[in-house]
């Protein structure tokens, strides 16, 4: 670097006041900067054991507050055509207009866990999704979002299950599980969901939540239905919770209270669940449940699987935790038969 001109003019060894003061000024300014930076960043305690994050306390309660005035909390529909069944079922509960107000933003949680075709019934049926999304729009929903955090590659899952196509044709918006959507949640009464990443980013601005789930065998949990479907909101290495599968599903029932639960037992995966993979794993059970109570809906599913409440401990546990009632007949479900 070239020395500054005034320095050049000064013979070496001579005191130059101007130059000295300037240097004094620079040095002091740098010293003050260093000192203030050090003061600003001063950390007396040293690092904490883990990164502290502000955690949410849940995904929210989307259950209708006006439910008591409605015609019912549950409909059990028999038939084979999912579109007709779900329309009749929702009609029996007062129609979609009862649940969805003009301008609502509706979030539909599907089960898109695996990249398998709809015929294998390991995932939410796309025709059913299309029918529900259409009903939402008809009732005045401004936007319908569809999401899940699947086990296989999300793009493959949404495409191969037909759910992406169903969303496209009805105008619903598919939300893949981007990393940015996950935020830590600590359930106030939770033992397992503590500072755990949950897909909370899809919820801001959402008014209603509908969960659409298939009925499937599940060796560890006994059955995979509505409540187990909520597992798909968890992020991270969520599989560690399988050590206490009933505990985690019970906590999931506290994580989110949906507006409406649709349990699709038109076809039930009786064996080899929850992946299935063969038509021989399936059985026509011709039942679809529309309910505001996830525990009650799942209790019907248990019967479709030929099991009892004792085989699926998490239902009684969720009931005790206040998520619903396992004795679904208490809700006096409307019985609808669409095949007649």
């Amino acid at each position, binding site marked *: 670097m070239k020395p500054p001109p005034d320095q050049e003019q000064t013979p070496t060894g001579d005191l130059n006041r101007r130059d000295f003061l300037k240097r004094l000024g620079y040095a002091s300014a740098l010293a003050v900067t260093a000192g203030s930076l050090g003061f600003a960043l001063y950390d007396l305690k040293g690092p904490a054991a883990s990164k502290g994050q502000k955690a949410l306390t849940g995904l929210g309660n989307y259950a209708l507050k006006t439910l008591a005035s409605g015609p019912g909390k549950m409909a059990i529909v028999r038939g084979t055509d999912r579109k007709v069944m779900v329309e009749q079922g929702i009609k029996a509960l007062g129609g979609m207009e009862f649940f969805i107000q003009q301008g609502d933003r509706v979030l539909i949680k599907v089960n898109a866990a*695996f*990249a*398998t*075709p709809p015929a294998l019934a390991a995932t939410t049926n796309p025709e059913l999704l299309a029918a529900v999304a259409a009903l939402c729009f008809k009732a005045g929903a401004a936007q319908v979002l569809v999401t899940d955090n699947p*086990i*296989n*590659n*999300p*793009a*493959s899952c*949404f*495409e*191969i299950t037909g759910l*992406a196509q169903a969303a496209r044709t009805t105008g619903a918006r598919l939300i*893949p*599980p*981007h*990393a*940015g959507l996950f935020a830590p949640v600590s359930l106030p009464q939770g*033992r397992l969901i503590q500072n755990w990443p949950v897909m909370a980013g899809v919820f801001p601005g959402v008014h209603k939540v509908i969960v659409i789930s298939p009925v499937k065998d*599940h*060796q*560890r949990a006994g059955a995979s239905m509505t409540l187990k479907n909520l597992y798909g909101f968890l992020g991270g*290495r969520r*599989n*560690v919770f*399988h*050590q*206490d*599968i*009933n*505990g985690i599903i019970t906590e999931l029932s506290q994580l989110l209270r949906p507006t409406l639960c649709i349990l699709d037992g038109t076809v039930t995966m009786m*064996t*080899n669940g*929850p*992946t*299935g*993979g*063969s038509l*021989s*794993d399936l059985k026509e059970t011709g039942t679809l449940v529309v309910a505001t109570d996830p525990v009650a809906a799942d209790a019907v599913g248990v019967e479709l699987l030929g099991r009892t409440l*004792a085989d699926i*401990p*998490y239902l*009684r*546990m969720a009931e005790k935790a206040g998520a619903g009632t396992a004795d679904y007949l208490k809700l006096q479900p409307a019985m609808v038969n669409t095949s007649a």
Partner: protein
Amino acid sequence: MRIVTVRRISQVFFLALFLWFCLAATLGAAFWQLRGWPINWILELDPLTALSTSLATHSFYAPLAWALVAIVLTLFVGRFFCGFVCPLGTINQLTGWLGRRGQNPAARVEANRFRRAQNLKYYLLVFLLALALMGSVQTGIFDPLPLLHRSVNLALAPLADNRLGLLSDEPRFYASAWLLGALFLGIVGLNLVLPRFFCRFVCPLGALFGLLARFTPWRVGKTTDNCGDCRLCEEFCEGACRPAGKIILSECVMCLNCLNRCPASRITFAGRPSAAGEAGLPDLSRRGLVAAGAGLLLVSMWDVGGLAKANRNPNLIRPPGALDEDRFLTRCIRCGQCMRICPGNILQPALLEAGIQGLWTPMVNFRLGRSGCQPNCIACGQVCPTAAIRPVSLEEKLGTGEFATQGPIRIGTAFVDRSRCLPWVMDRPCLVCHELCPVSPKAIFTRTVYETVRGGRGLPARVLGQGVDLYGPIPAGINLASGDYYLRVTGQPDAAHRRITGFSGNRITLENPLAVAGTQVYYGAKVDILVRLQRPFVDAARCTGCGMCEHECPVSGLRAIRVYSENESRSRPGRLLI
């Protein structure tokens, strides 16, 4: 229009086409993503890939027939590919040009003089072809087209995926991506040392084109040897082929800057020899060529190592449809297309897992990515430009339809590690592997046992039908009411055990009353706390090695269930079941 303008348009076009194919090679549902776009087309134009795989396999794989177009054109007009098409050539030319802006003409001419080291690429070509002749295709390591695809697929595109979230929905991970990225940056950076450094000294594809250009009827030359000393033709000579003097035709990359620059228009591209004399090739030394032929020996020595046979690496799992190891290495050019496509992101470039001869070939790593090998996916075989991974159909992969008798394609077999598995050694229920096994009926099955938990034997208790009060320290760290724990009277191994449904204070609630010697109330009883464990086993006859289990196993470090290459369909020595 001036010919260099045409060249620049062509270069921009092919670079843009290349980038578009890279973009289209992204997994996703959008129209610009994988939709049958011809993303391999530039790789298929590559005569070096065609030649080396033909030497190694004694056959000419149909999609590589595009290479004939490049070959035939080169035979007539020379290395047009280097000057007009090659996307790496364009990147090199552009960086070399940017790095030399403002330099004086003398320095430019000096940078563009012919150097003997340019012969190296011919020796490298001979070496690689010798390897190919012996059945080991290594051209892709240096061949600019696979090299560029690999660099973008595994190092650059993931930056756009991960940091910016531009291409893929999810971040993509590639083992040793830094190395591929550093090599690429190194190649680009060397252009600051000399223009088109890689093209001049290393590129074996350029060397092959140089040889093919030996008899081109049309070529660059001077109309008269009688010209001044301006050297303007060499100021921007990309190939360092000595256009001012006795031109070396094999080095001419057809940048055609000399035509454009010559103030007297004494340089032409025409069907006659240069008036200043011409050489077909630089002077290659016989010694160098013989030394390069040592590749013949190298492959034989690789065989001595037995990596494809008895000394197989059990961790080397190849994608479904991959040929047996010997034949796989006669085709794989390490372009990375399969690894870019894989929706699970589990296809990874091998470093030394397949030996040095398998550098950057695709192998499965079930610890990375989103899931195991998805049963309904055949993407890797569909994009492989050389059929190192065969383009199998879904039916063949799953073993359905006409493939029902031969069964599904297996890439390995899962083994339960009983020293790490939670229900095997830690008294914890788990069963994630079983849940995710996608085969029907599942390849993973379970056997149920009831084990007395640690500190749970012979606890003093008062039994009151369904309620039991425990007097004694209750084992810590377990949720007794989780539905997985049971109570049994001590010393009566055959007595019915009852599921615990509730627990508070020291009071345990049971699903059914615990009968003790016929009475419902019993003081001074002793009870055991049991945990119900479903322990996983693998039915090797059903396991396809898809690795869903390994990927999802909650023992997150070294997984408690792992897939090894045993029983993979592609290899005979790996056969496990009789």
